[in-house]
């Protein structure tokens, strides 16, 4: 009897493990069996409201009217360097998704995204891209790896309510770095909140130090022919760090929580705990959809530039790239979707209005200042098409929108960008955490470290 029971148990165990294995093996469906192509696409970010997801699903329906043979499955997704390799290896990566300008080149070099030159060149506007914007999606040979979109310039975001409480005029944001420093001190003295905050973590410290260096006329890397060298040890970066040091230790206007990343600083700002900070000009969208910022408190102006002829504003954006494992049909479908979802609305009135109308139906922010993917004329034209739908407080953003086209746009450091940013993170953190930090020595060490990385 005992033996008998043992046998039954064994059979059950084998059956159970077989089921597990079978479950592991299934899941591959043949996307093209019925003549239809199925693609999964980045839809909305984790943490976004249901309304954001709904508006994407509505746009999918619109897309399907013109493309009945393409099945688009939008997914909750956000570019994260951490999860990307596992998703790539495990086959759970969407067919197409956005990657920041900064990371595109690395993915190209590692052949982790697909070459879509043929598909992009077939688009009607392929020749009219702003060259420096398209360059973010190209390799050295000019092959194209995606469609650029969401091009932003860095801007200075400020809390109008804190400005008022501190006795400052929210319609007159600072126009020089001396004013930024003075206003920050005034905000802290009058309200007790940090007058100015800056990102320092997860490579954002380097991103921001680069932005401020550009604004002072300095550079982080210089390219001469085929070689790129680090020029971190320059007077402009030293000047920026010196000012941050003064604001942190003498004015005490930067608060005491200094290890901030992108999400952290947005959260603090939306909660009214930051007077001013520098970030991408499009961050208002995330402040609304993720952090529920009070629109009345929001203000945006340009990052002040010094008189240096080299002073410029750092720009960035996203490239809608395609999974390296995608088939030719999937690549075509993915580029079609990106054309519809991200780019066509910038050049065609019907597409622009349709997009704005769909977003408006679910109360999504429309009209947050971005920079031209094509040229300034097309950009202005597009703003006019959607003028009736714009629902962001544009009057509180005129400091940026009236002045940004007078600013010289400078691209991010071209080589090993994120790694160099990582090196700069430590520099900013040191200056903000150690009152006796030796800025000259920090810059010289960082330059050596960056040179070592660039030489790899």
């Amino acid at each position: 009897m005992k033996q008998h029971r043992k046998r039954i148990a064994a059979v059950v165990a084998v059956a159970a493990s077989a089921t597990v294995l079978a479950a592991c093996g299934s899941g591959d469906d043949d996307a093209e069996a019925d003549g239809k192509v199925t693609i999964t696409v980045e839809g909305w970010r984790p943490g976004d409201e249901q309304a954001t997801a709904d508006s994407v699903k509505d746009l999918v329906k619109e897309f399907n009217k013109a493309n009945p043979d393409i099945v688009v499955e939008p997914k909750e997704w956000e570019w994260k360097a951490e999860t990307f390799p596992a998703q790539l290896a495990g086959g759970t990566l969407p067919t197409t998704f956005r990657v920041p300008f900064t990371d595109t080149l690395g993915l190209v070099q590692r052949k982790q995204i697909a070459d879509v030159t043929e598909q992009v060149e077939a688009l009607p506007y392929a020749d009219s891209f702003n060259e420096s914007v398209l360059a973010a999606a190209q390799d050295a040979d000019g092959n194209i790896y995606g469609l650029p979109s969401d091009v932003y310039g860095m801007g200075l975001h400020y809390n109008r309510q804190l400005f008022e409480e501190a006795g400052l005029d929210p319609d007159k944001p600072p126009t020089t770095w001396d004013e930024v420093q003075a206003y920050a001190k005034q905000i802290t003295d009058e309200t007790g909140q940090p007058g100015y905050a800056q990102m320092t973590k997860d490579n954002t410290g380097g991103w921001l130090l680069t932005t401020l260096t550009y604004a002072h006329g300095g550079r982080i890397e210089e390219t001469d022919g085929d070689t790129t060298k680090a020029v971190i040890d320059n007077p402009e970066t030293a000047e920026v760090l010196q000012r941050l040091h003064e604001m942190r230790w003498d004015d005490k206007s930067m608060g005491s929580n200094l290890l901030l990343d992108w999400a952290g600083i947005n959260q603090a700002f939306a909660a009214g705990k930051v007077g001013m900070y520098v970030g991408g000009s499009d961050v208002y969208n995330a402040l609304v959809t993720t952090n529920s910022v009070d629109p009345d408190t929001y203000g945006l102006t340009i990052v002040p530039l010094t008189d240096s002829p080299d002073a410029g504003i750092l720009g960035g954006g996203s490239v809608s790239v395609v999974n390296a494992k995608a088939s030719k049909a999937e690549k075509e479908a993915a580029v079609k979707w990106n054309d519809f979802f991200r780019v066509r609305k910038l050049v065609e009135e019907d597409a622009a209005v349709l997009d704005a109308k769909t977003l408006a139906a679910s109360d999504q922010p429309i009209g947050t200042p971005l920079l031209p993917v094509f040229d300034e004329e097309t950009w202005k034209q597009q703003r006019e098409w959607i003028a009736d739908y714009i629902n962001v407080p544009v009057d509180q953003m005129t400091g940026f929108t009236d002045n940004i086209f007078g600013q010289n746009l400078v691209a991010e450091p071209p080589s090993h960008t994120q790694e160099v940013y990582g090196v700069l993170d430590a520099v900013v953190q040191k200056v903000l955490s150690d009152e006796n930090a030796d800025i000259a020595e920090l810059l010289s060490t960082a330059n050596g470290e960056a040179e070592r990385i660039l030489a790899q």
Partner: protein
Amino acid sequence: MTSAAPPRRRPRRSPSTWVRGGGLSTLVLLLPMLLVFGLFSWWPIVRSFVMSLQVTNLVGPAEWVGLDNFQAVLADPMLGTALWNTVYFALLALIFGYPVPLVLAVLMSDLRRGKGVYSTLAYLPVVVPPAVAVLLWKFFYDASPSGVFNTILGWVGLGPVPWLEDTSWAMPSLVVEATWAAAGGTVIIYLAALVSVPPELYDAAEIDGSGIWRKIWHVTLPQMRTILLITLVLQIIGTAQVFLEPYLFTDGGPDNSTTTLLLLVYDYAFGNSLGGDYGKATALSLMLAGGLAILSAVYFRLTRRWSDS
């Protein structure tokens, strides 16, 4: 009586006797477990060996590069920083973290009433999900004068302390949280071990005129030495692999003062997307695993004499 019994011949086991003896059903019962372990535990270990000798983009075929990844890791100036930070964390955790559960367990075992309540309280932090615990402690560690700990310090005229924002405070702050989070589990183990100490030994010590400290020193600790030695090596292995606290609290900052070996492994693989260097990451992981294996072997060899009870 010199004749001994003839040596018993080991019966030869044919496959059928093996099956009849229950060998097959044992194997079959073991199979699901072996599969799960093999698939999710051992296979990844084997893969990481392979990967440490390769450069791969996870799409196309990997390229064999011999020991290049190991050389690159050894040449990285961050390795020294990360190694020192890890040793520093382990040392601090040993000094603060190792005695705390023992003291708590000894005190709790001496309680006449409410033992259950106290052991529940001690174990509670283990039940709190680690990420939640870190979020909670981030509030405690708020560096502004209105932060929880700084408010408490303010009552006695101290602070404010830049808990996580200063290169010399950051690591001790992480150790305090890690000790809080992990002590409960060890307390339970010690409490169980304390129960097994024969009460007659305490009675005998009492007759000999021992006070509480002498009883602990001469009875409790020697009786618990096996378990103490094991928890010590488990703690060293655990703290050498510290990742969660530096990752969630400080991301290695400020100025790399909390970048540990595991965080460096993570950075190689995922932290900076232009690195994407899975080969270097696995190479460093293997070196760490090898180092810990050697350390544990040496430790058990050295302490073998003590643990024989």
